[in-house]
């Protein structure tokens, strides 16, 4: 990924020279967030950010890091249970948005008798099954084969707010997102994390001090946009304090 940024404003037309040059000509062009296609052949932006292209995938999208989270299929998120109705939990994906449904049976190994009991304001790590652009959003905690794969109710621990960009970086993994802070910390202390694309990080370090230290370290990396060296320094300082 190139470092030089092409900054775009809403309404800017993307010339064909700026679009990705696919190695495989047959692959259709994929437009990601922030771009729209006006037939026949015009591509314009809808948000302000940096234009990013991927030649291998023949994809282009706009990178941005502000605003509210908009659900998209298969995103992993941390949802808050609001109420439980006959067959599903109604959950908040972000505050003040319509509630999403999470069926009682959409948990690993759940049957009518063993379905989980979640009180209001409990946290669930879930996958977006349907972003609900034209209906009610739907969540699930199982994949096609019925496996939970780490999804499900989050017990204990603490959630920390992080920016949407940071959540994307954390989920993209070490190479692409250049985040080493969690890895560095995990060499010395044990903790569990769950990263929600909706801007939440759940941490359970077994005790208050560890949980707080991990959560705050990630928030610090996020707020100061630290690179690898900066993150190592944070890790060192945090480990010393524990």
């Amino acid at each position, binding site marked *: 990924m190139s470092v030089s940024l092409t900054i775009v404003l809403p309404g800017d037309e*993307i010339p064909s020279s700026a679009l990705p040059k696919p190695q495989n000509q047959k692959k259709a062009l994929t437009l990601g967030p922030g771009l729209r296609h006006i037939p026949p052949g015009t591509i314009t932006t*809808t948000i*302000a950010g940096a234009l990013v292209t991927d030649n291998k995938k023949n994809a282009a999208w706009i990178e*941005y890091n502000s*605003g509210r989270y908009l659900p998209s299929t298969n995103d992993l998120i941390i949802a808050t249970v609001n109420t439980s109705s006959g067959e599903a939990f109604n959950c908040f994906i972000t505050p003040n948005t319509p509630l999403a449904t999470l069926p009682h049976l959409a948990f690993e190994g759940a049957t009518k008798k063993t379905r989980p009991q979640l009180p209001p304001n409990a946290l669930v790590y879930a996958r977006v099954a349907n972003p609900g652009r034209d209906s009610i959003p739907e969540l699930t905690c199982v994949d096609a084969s019925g496996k939970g794969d780490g999804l499900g109710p989050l017990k204990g621990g603490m959630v920390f707010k992080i920016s949407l960009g940071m959540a994307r970086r954390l989920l993209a993994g070490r190479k692409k997102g250049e985040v080493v802070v969690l890895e560095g910390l995990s060499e010395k202390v044990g903790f569990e994390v769950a990263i929600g694309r909706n801007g939440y990080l759940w941490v359970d370090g077994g005790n208050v001090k560890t949980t707080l230290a991990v959560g705050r370290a990630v928030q610090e990396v996020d707020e100061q946009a630290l690179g690898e060296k900066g993150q190592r320094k944070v890790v060192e300082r945090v480990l010393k304090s524990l």
Partner: protein
Amino acid sequence: MAPLPTADLTTLHRADGSATYTHLSHTIIGSVNGPIEVQRRDELPSSATLEVNIRPAGGVGTPRERHLETLVHDTLRSVVLVEKIPRTLVQVTLQVRSLPEEESGGADSSTTASSLTLLPHLLHTSLLALLSASIPLRTTLTSTVVAIPRDGQGMLVSPTANELLRRRPMRSIHVFAFDGEGKLLLNESEGEFGVEEWDEACEMAEEVCCKGDGGVGLGEGMDVDGEGQAQSLEAWLRGVVGRKVEVEQRWRVAT
């Protein structure tokens, strides 16, 4: 020519998007929440609902604010891609923080020239807050005021409150807003004027808003912070957004 406005994006923590904007001693704080759940009675089946709240520096909203709200609302409706986020609410709140001394004048508030002079500032602030909230937009906008003095000599483009005060009363005041392609989005005129005068005013406003635009394509390596800035509002807007994106992408180049 008047100096360009200064603006900071995402200055608030709670709102989804926000901007603090200062120009000619007007300071406005704008915030955007959205897309959020809309009340049933306001829900539109195929587009988003926009809600604009203008809060004066002192006192509660008056018909003057309601009028400005309507103007801002109607302009923003053609800027926001409302059909992309149907059945949601986008809430825009504009808080006037400070006004020029001439307009806030306390006991002798008779100097308040026209409510129109505030309109370009409100439009700019709301656009910046929408950009900060990453609400899908069709285009951007730029706006300015043109005032024609009584003698018709020397039109004032984007005048300061002091200039307006010294040369009052104005014969007519015009507000123009243009979209990113330089098309006219809004015109509000008050006072007495002829067609030729209006034409001239419109041309002058266009010059201030979108001059030197069009050549700024993606292929030509845009230098947003370059020295030889075309001093149009369009170029200014690009600079503000450029700084925002740079801050967001800092981590890519950070060590």
